[in-house]
């Protein structure tokens, strides 16, 4: 079997007001089920090895994590080559519980946006209050990014991780690069 590749083979943009880079392969599992059910919770935490996040939260540690997508959906992050094993493990944990766990690692593209003005880059594209007071690490937001859906969270005070559909990876990368173009700092947030 060939080596799997990401949508943009690790594209990066370094010259603007924030650094944009496509992340390497990231394991992602969509888990749908009753989030209050202990089987579903165990399946999620067992695969991601992190605690359950709250509503609109992401609990991520490096390439593992759980993102709250909706009241009956989680996005489980894990190492790319652990996905199949994790789905098997989750299926076992879920037992008879009504749930759906499916690999979406290749259906998505993931980006990192880093820098003191990373917030502004996203605020040019997403109708979300990204001021320091209103968006911080731990929070997770699904929204519109220009003309496509996207979801993001902060991995530290100056870094965002963002996922979008794989087919739209080029569009999203181009958007981010344009929004980060040199000389385009807004300086609207406290730093």
């Amino acid at each position, binding site marked *: 079997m*060939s080596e799997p590749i990401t949508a943009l083979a690790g594209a990066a943009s370094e010259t603007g007001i924030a650094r944009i880079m496509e992340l390497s392969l990231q394991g992602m599992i969509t888990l749908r089920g009753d989030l209050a059910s202990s089987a579903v919770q165990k399946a999620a935490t067992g695969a991601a090895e992190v605690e359950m996040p709250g509503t609109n939260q992401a609990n991520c540690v490096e390439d593992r994590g759980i993102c709250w997508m909706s009241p009956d959906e989680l996005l489980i992050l894990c190492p790319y080559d652990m996905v199949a094993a994790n789905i098997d493990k989750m299926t076992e944990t879920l037992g008879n519980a009504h749930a759906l766990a499916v690999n979406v690692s290749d259906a*998505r593209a993931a980006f990192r946006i880093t820098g003191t003005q990373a917030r502004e880059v996203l605020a040019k594209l997403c*109708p979300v209050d990204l001021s320091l007071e209103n968006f911080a690490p731990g929070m997770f937001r699904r929204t519109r990014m220009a003309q496509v859906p996207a979801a993001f969270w902060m991995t530290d005070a100056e870094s965002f991780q963002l996922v979008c559909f794989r087919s739209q990876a080029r*569009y999203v990368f181009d958007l981010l690069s344009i*929004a980060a173009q040199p000389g385009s700092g807004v300086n609207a947030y406290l730093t």
Partner: protein
Amino acid sequence: MSTRLAAGGRLLNKEKALSFTFNGKQLRGFEGDTLASALLANDQMLIGRSFKYHRPRGVVASGAEEPNGLVNLGAEGSFEPNQRVTTTELFDGLTATSQNHWPSLEFDVGAINTHLSRFLPAGFYYKMFIHPRPLWKHVYEPFIRQSAGLGRAPKARDADTYEHFYFFCDVMVIGGGVAGLQAAKTAAASGAKVLLIEQTAHWGGRAPVDGGTVDGIPVDNFVEQTVAELEAMPNVTLRKRMMGAGVYDHGYVLGYEQLRDYAPEKPGPRHRLWRIRAGHIVTATGAIERPLSFAGNDIPGVMLASALRDYVVNYGVSAGDRTVIVTNNDDAYLTAFALNYAGLSVPVILDARVLAEDSPAMEQAKAMGIRVMMGHAVAKVKGGKRVTGVAVCSQAGEGAVLEEIACDAVAMSGGWSPVVHLWSHCGGKLSWDDAQAHFRPDVDKAPTGADGQPFVTTAGAASGALHLSDVLGDGDQAGKLAAAASGFKVKQTRCPVGESPEEAPMMPIWLMPQGAGVELRSKSWLDYQNDVKVSDVQLAAQEGFESVEHAKRYTTLGMATDQGKLSNINGLATLAGALNTSIPQVGTTTFRPPYTPISMGAIGGEARGDVFQPVRRTPMHDWHDANGADWEPVGQWRRPYAYLRPGEKVHDAVMRETKNTRENLGLLDASTLGKLIVKGPDAGRFLDMLYTNMMSTLKPGKCRYGLMCSENGFLIDDGVVARIDEETFLCHTTTGGAERIHQHMEEWLQTEWWDWQVYVANVTEQYVQVAVVGPNARTALEKLGGMDVSKEALGFMEWADGELGGFKVRVYRISFSGELSYEIAVDAGHGQAFWDALMVVGNDLGVMPYGTEALHILRAEKGFIMIGDETDGTVIPQDLGLHWAISKKKEDFLGKRAQERSHMTDPTRWKLVGLETLSGAVLPDGAYAVGEGENANGQKNMIGRVTSSYYSPNLGKGIAMGLVLHGPDRMGEVIEFPGTEGATFKARIVDPVFYDKEGEKGNV
């Protein structure tokens, strides 16, 4: 002549000289100049020509309200027409040209219109050019288009970039004059997050020019101090060069920030459109001075009194050596003082009022030795391209000239109108203020937001508070109110006290002199840019255009690029006078955003060029591109229409691919087809409701073609469903259907059957799906090696998981071409490698990739329908002969009841058939068949239409499908399809399956 004064110019940096050109002439200005002030400093009073009569036009104002000073700016990729000189900051190397004249600004042939003006009154175009009708298109319209219109459209592609920015705050203050500054300060003191914006490059608004004191210190010091305080507050964001363009529902505001118009050398975007959500909005947008209506008030050199004073104080520019002031209020006296301080001559102040006693301003003027003539007016202004003098008359009379006074500038003031645009955009109402003769916000009728509460408050002059002493208090109140409205506890702060001289009341003057005859009225301009005069509005009223909205459109009053900022109130008053009614009775026209024009680039934001639209790409996109793909947009996807070899034409490539797939081996990138996982104990039951077929009886390992209808009964999608296990199905949708059908499923699960246990996941993009099609398909897969793909192991309409060539695959034995065909799904990350592997093993099997057009022809040869070709939202499965796919056993499915309606079961519904022209030619796609007789409208009766039509290289003739009245009962009959340009196609009704009717090719 207008010139630069030796002293003055508080906004100028005289250390830094700038050079620029106007109509190719090299001119000089200073940093801090606007293009208007720099042009005036160079004695360039004549700047353009008016829209209709091509009258000479000079600068009349000093800000956003300017109607006349419009120029072309820049060149090539930065060219932009209709830029206001008064709001254009000068920079080194600026190039401007005048517009709307031929051959030159100074000598314009179109100016003949001014002499014909008595033949070109309001409504002239409507009356004149209506007959004879044919002349409009070929004579009148081209001529009018040639002579009318401002500026010209840019030809080069815009070289700049633009962006949006989403911002959220508790209180937004629009306008950085003293009211806005004070409002921002009090709102911020409560802890609210405040955004304060100012459209110009300077804080303080008019106050530094008009003077006065705040708490005993000069007002400009107060401005400086307040700005410094605001800058130090962490909860305040200040922006200059940003205009509040529009106020919309639920606290939405568009802020138009000009980032580098004043400094093109700076990197980055040119404009940024802020998309702001504010808890409460304070509009501290000031007021605009009104012109007076007297004959010749449009001659270059006649300016607003406040503008004249701005040019002297802010830019050290005099509009003329001798300036006559004409006014109905005390404010214009400030202009006389400013000119006097600058050492310029004011021969007379013509004050239309008759007052019992002198106001402080009058006293001061007299003390300065300025002649003040009360109760007097301008009979007419003398001059052509420049003011040379005024004829003086009594305001009370009909314009008998008492004396003539030589001058080269006239400063006029008809009073002030609050800028109520932003208040009104979202529904704020106005009330008429008799004392100040203007409309001001009716505080009891504010725009209301999501919670039903008012969300806009005006402050300062925008409220009608015109004097510094009132302005500060009003701003202070507005700030507190805004903070409280957005949920903050108001801090009780002291309001600074402003002091400005007492003023005598103004007196409304709508025509000067009040008894002016038609001769004078037809030279008294209301709208300078669109050439609307007092006489035009009166004519409109006389002809029955009594509604203000009708009069506006008939005369074009207020319809120019300035949207009537100067002309509206004067126009309304004129209309009210003509109708013998009151101004509030006439009412205003609607204020619509943007406040002043904003660039199209800013509206588009980032959405241009490569990111104009999101283009969706499959993992093999680059390969397709490198291998000659002629792209076809399919929704947001790009799919190869055909793969062109060097020198090959599209049609030839399609023919080659279509033939090769039937004869050898074709590969199709089918990744864009939707793939939805439907899982749960109720999944079968759910799919039985969604599809017309029975899906719950499908066995794991098997596939079934299914149809989906809307509740209205119409076909909305089709595709192959594979049962994965007892609880899990994988539903294929059309390319355009993936998201739509996913949402369709979610909608029914969430809103109707929320107690059913089913989960859906869209895994479309997890997989690349390749259709391996043709007689050599199995051999190719066998060469890849791995799982058994024989007829016995993997029959038609079966699927299996396994490995091929080392790739983890799911193989569906399904066919949309009638050929031996496998659709193979692999994880998208391996998609390109898998495609490459297929190309390698296919090399000696005649492999060719094929595009969507070959796909279409192959399916049409087999009579397979295509959603969007055979369906158009009005077609039910029964029309397409798909009864076999509609379960009769099911009690219910979406659309079942609707399909029982009489119209749906009507035997005269057009039905699907095949069509073959007698000549073998290709029928035009979409052509209609005509039958006997005519309908009630005298049109020929239609009896069918073509839904798909192609040239089939495998059959060597044109083939088509169509919907025809009683079609299936009329096999062999010939019907007629009129084409374009007199051609008629005769076509025979045939079975829609043209190729391999027995289905032997796929059954191997």
